[in-house]
């Protein structure tokens, strides 16, 4: 955390009034465990008018690769029962565009900025990592190896243990910044993938990305997305994400950032109990931009009600015996 001054919260914690919400992701300390999901929070600046970004655990930006990416044709999103589909196609300004347009604002934030990156080759991943390592001031890098919406790159790395290990290892060699590997949900068993990322030097896992899915407009007979298929997100996928977090947490020792359908503090706490050390709010930002702040407040309230002082008293605390 780049905050030098003590926040009101941490003072209250010392006085014994407030639970301690801080959490560590590798060598990075977050003032609270609530971040936002890449691609649902733009580059931070867009939401700055609606909420105080410095209250978040971290700001996570939309996926960046080396060069600018036009993204997919429209329609790019569609609403489905208790969720949505998206196939944005990782539209983005590339590393240079990002640094020029968005870094001046992001670098003024008091909370860590996590940059979500991707590439189409192992070498491209490593190159993007090197560029952000050189930039200075970056909180952590999140390796997106699980986007279902681009033909090359993305999901292929997330569903092949060997490739996954290679990508993470190459990025590891390229930086000392904390590395977070963003896992694909589209695997029979997440454990070996989680292990592969850990073994290759990842400091944390982000679980989970969107789930491959599809919707058809029956009047026009057209897929609701121009890309035909897309990623399912929102409350509808929460039970799938909870299971993935639980399984990943049992497979590795590194912290997990849980996400998938979080709408309120109760959802976040469910992720903690399943084994997540931090969470990210994604789709809910679109319909309720205050969600991350509401989640932080709700976690604090829950901890007070239960007399809990530290998040570690909740993380992974699901009781399996009856």
């Amino acid at each position, binding site marked *: 955390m780049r905050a030098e001054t003590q926040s009101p919260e941490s003072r209250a914690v010392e006085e014994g009034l407030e639970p301690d919400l801080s959490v560590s992701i590798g060598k990075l300390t977050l003032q609270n465990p609530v971040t936002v999901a890449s*691609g*649902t*929070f*733009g580059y931070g600046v*867009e*939401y700055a*008018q*609606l909420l105080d970004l410095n209250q978040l655990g971290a700001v996570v930006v*939309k996926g960046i690769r080396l060069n600018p990416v*036009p*993204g997919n*044709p*429209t*329609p*790019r*999103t*569609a*609403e489905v*029962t*208790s*969720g*949505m589909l*998206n196939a*944005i196609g990782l*539209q983005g300004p590339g590393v240079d565009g990002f640094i020029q347009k968005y870094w001046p604002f992001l670098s003024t934030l008091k909370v860590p900025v996590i940059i979500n990156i991707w590439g189409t080759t192992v070498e491209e991943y490593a190159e993007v990592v090197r560029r952000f390592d050189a930039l200075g001031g970056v909180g952590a890098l999140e390796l997106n190896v699980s986007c279902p919406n681009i033909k090359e790159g993305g999901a292929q790395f997330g569903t092949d243990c060997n490739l996954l290990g290679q990508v993470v290892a190459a990025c590891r060699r390229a930086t000392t910044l904390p590395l977070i590997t963003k896992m694909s949900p589209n695997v029979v068993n997440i454990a070996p993938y989680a292990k592969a990322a850990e073994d290759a030097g990842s400091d944390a896992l982000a679980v989970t990305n969107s789930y491959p899915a599809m919707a058809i407009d029956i009047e*026009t007979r*057209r897929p609701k997305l121009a890309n035909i298929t897309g990623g399912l997100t*929102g*409350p509808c996928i929460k039970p799938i994400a909870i299971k993935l977090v639980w399984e990943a947490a049992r497979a590795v020792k590194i912290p997990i950032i849980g996400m998938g359908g979080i709408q309120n503090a109760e959802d976040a706490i469910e992720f903690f109990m399943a084994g997540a050390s931090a969470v990210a709010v994604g*789709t809910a*930002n*679109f*319909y*309720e*931009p*205050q969600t991350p702040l509401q989640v932080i407040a709700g976690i604090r309230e829950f901890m007070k009600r239960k007399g809990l002082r530290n998040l570690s008293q909740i993380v992974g605390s699901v009781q399996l015996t009856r």
Partner: protein
Amino acid sequence: MLEQIVQIVSNERSTDSYYRLVVRAPQIAPRIQPGQFAHVRILPMKDALLRRPFSIFQVEGDTFSILYKTVGKGTVALARMQSGEELSVIAPLGHGFTVPQPGAETPLLVAGGYGMAAMYLLARRSPQKGIVFVGGRRRVDILCEREFQDLGWEVRVTTEDGSHGEKGLVTQPLLAELKSAQRGRKLFACGPTPMLQAVGKIAGEHDVPAELSMDEHMCCGVGVCLTCVIRVRSGDTWEYRRTCTEGPVFDARDVVWEEAR
């Protein structure tokens, strides 16, 4: 841009499947520019989560209103809500119309269906009066004719079935008008995409400036999700721009039309 829980002042059926909703929003109302929109969370929607975008139709004191058509679950749920109930609104959003300044070109407004909503605020704020071309399928799709006349604007109506005004498409009287005198005119259009495309083409052919309010599906409404993009000219190629932030109003010359869906 502000997010606020607002109270419904009234929500009444206007004609057929069109409704007018008035909400009290003291912080938002004074900031609204013509062509901007409100992104509305309709809580009674069952298992549908996303906000719905609506052009701002009128601003009166600390209230603003929208004019909407019931077409799906969101608008149907909205139509069932009653005064006193609450909505969450993010507004004002987007880049609106350039309000004609005294001495500028005469504004010709072209509207189809609920496109009239966005036009009314423009007409009201425009110091210069002009002509409104309004088209629809049937008589019931012609909205606010009276309101425009009360502002002192001329209204030229077309309906596809001829049940009101001239029979045909809204572009017919527009073309006739442009033929009579092209210079010193500027088009402003809001309505279905094929209509916008036709207006854009006419503007190009007659070399008159035109501002089009694009109707794209939206998700976040504030520029973060990249759902609402259209192709916009950039040098000798194009790039995607967001209708929710860089639009919904674009200069017709900048829009690169994709094939009709």
